[in-house]
């Protein structure tokens, strides 16, 4: 479903590498967790997958689409096949929960009738059916993130990428979000989750890919993760 072959991303000579010869393969319907400290390269990896960035070298194939052969004009088509959840939710503040989810369907030309049928069903999956008319500002962090998940899955993508979706949430709300992601995975969607929350990783007991210093340092099924605190050197 997702294939990266020796992918390197550098931001000029001064900023150096963000990813260094990263190779990985994710099967359909898998639930994969990518872990690593801040700055390890997790976000860069996701930006490469959504084609917000291009790799400096290496090959990326997602859902059968070879990114080398993907012209800029077809990027929207690629993004319609991938659902993305962001750490900062990226909801439209002046639209209701329903409208935020519907927005993902509106921009691809789905009819109003179909939207009215689909959105409530998806809101039910993320347990927000009763809050359809609320504005994002009236929701808790966890609820907002579940709205973002509903928006990401409403088009029934084959792949769901969640970039630190629990980063801004307290443990209870964080776990609510993870539960929803597991549910979506059970329906057959491949989930790629990035996090540095070791509790979540350890409870989920899924395949864990660890990125450190821009490289994949381990890739193990049912793995445990211990995030080491940053080293502080005394002067």
């Amino acid at each position, binding site marked *: 479903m997702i294939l990266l072959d020796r992918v390197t991303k550098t931001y000029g000579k001064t900023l150096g590498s963000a990813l260094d010869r990263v190779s990985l393969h994710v099967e359909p319907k898998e639930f994969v967790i990518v872990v690593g400290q801040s700055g390890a390269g997790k976000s860069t990896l996701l930006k490469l997958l*959504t*084609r*917000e*960035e*291009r*790799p*400096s*070298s290496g090959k990326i194939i997602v859902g059968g689409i070879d990114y080398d052969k993907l012209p*800029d*004009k077809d*990027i*929207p*088509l*690629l*993004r*319609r096949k991938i659902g*993305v959840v*962001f750490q900062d939710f*990226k*909801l*439209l503040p002046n639209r209701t929960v329903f409208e935020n989810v519907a*927005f*993902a369907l*509106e*921009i*691809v*030309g*789905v*009819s*109003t009738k179909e939207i009215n049928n689909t959105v409530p069903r998806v809101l039910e999956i993320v347990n927000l059916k009763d809050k359809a008319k609320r504005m994002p500002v009236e929701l808790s962090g966890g609820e907002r993130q579940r709205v973002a998940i509903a*928006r990401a899955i409403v088009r029934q993508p084959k792949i769901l990428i969640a970039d630190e979706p629990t980063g801004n949430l307290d443990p209870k709300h964080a776990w609510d979000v993870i539960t929803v992601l597991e549910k979506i995975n059970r329906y057959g969607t491949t989930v790629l989750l990035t996090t540095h929350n070791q509790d979540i990783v350890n409870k989920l007991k899924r395949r864990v890919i660890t990125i450190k210093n821009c490289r994949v340092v381990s890739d193990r099924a049912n793995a445990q993760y211990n995030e080491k605190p940053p080293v502080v050197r005394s002067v």
Partner: protein
Amino acid sequence: MGRRTTTTGRIIRTGFLYFVRNAWLAVAAMATMIITLSIILFSIIVNATFANQVDQITNKIDISVYLKDTVTPAQAKSFVAKVERLSNVEQVTYLDKAAALRAFIKQNSGNDKLLAAVNETDNPLPATVKIKPKDLNKMDEIRSFVTKPEWQKLQSDPISDSGERRATIDKITHATNILQRAGIIAVAVFALISVLIIFNTIQMAIFNRRDELQIMRLLGASTGYIRAPFVVETVIYGVFSAIISILIINALFITASSSLQATSLGLLEISYSQQYFQERYWQLLLMQLTLGILIGAASSMIATQRYLKFKTPKK
């Protein structure tokens, strides 16, 4: 309803929404567009009025050749035929003595004394050949032909021409040329200003909606879907500006005709301008709409191309 129709409907609705949300910025963009369109409309009306005046005066200009009473109809006919062959001759009219008298009586119908004096004598008027030129600037060709000795011996009096009207025509032509040039410069300057202001308006609108646009892009909205509402928004500017500019010119005519009580301002025949404007009201409105929409759409297309970054950064 097809997917395309649904999308088009949503784009138009979003365009209107952007227009309403951006109302204050839109006022500035529309004001310059209104000025530009009003100047264009005004220039067209003034040009048409001047052209009409020149036409009217030109139509009255001719050269009259007066023939001696001894000239036979055959000689007159041959003279007329030769004149007709000149390249700059539009029309030649031959009036024999009787016709010349009739025309004279008709022309002076109010002047009883003069008519009584004419009636007391035999017909004193000579047969007349009236020559209408095609191009007023080439009247010398006709003049030099009819004053050739072979033709002059047929003439009773020196030729007369209404060339003094030339001075007026020259004046009008000169004024038209100056106005045309001033109009073109003003239109160019204001069109440029309005394009720049629309650019700025779109740039600010894009900046204000950057989060929304980023979300749209990440969710897979097509380039056209993101750009089109901005184009719709500026097309709305164009439509409003066109209608307002027509209303402004209309109001100017109403004010001019009611308060000035004048039919002309110097060289400008207001009554003809008004008639021209009223007769072509819908055509002019259509032209203004087309221009407004074109200016609006073209500037927003360029602005969105420039300020919305659609390309993924290079490697």
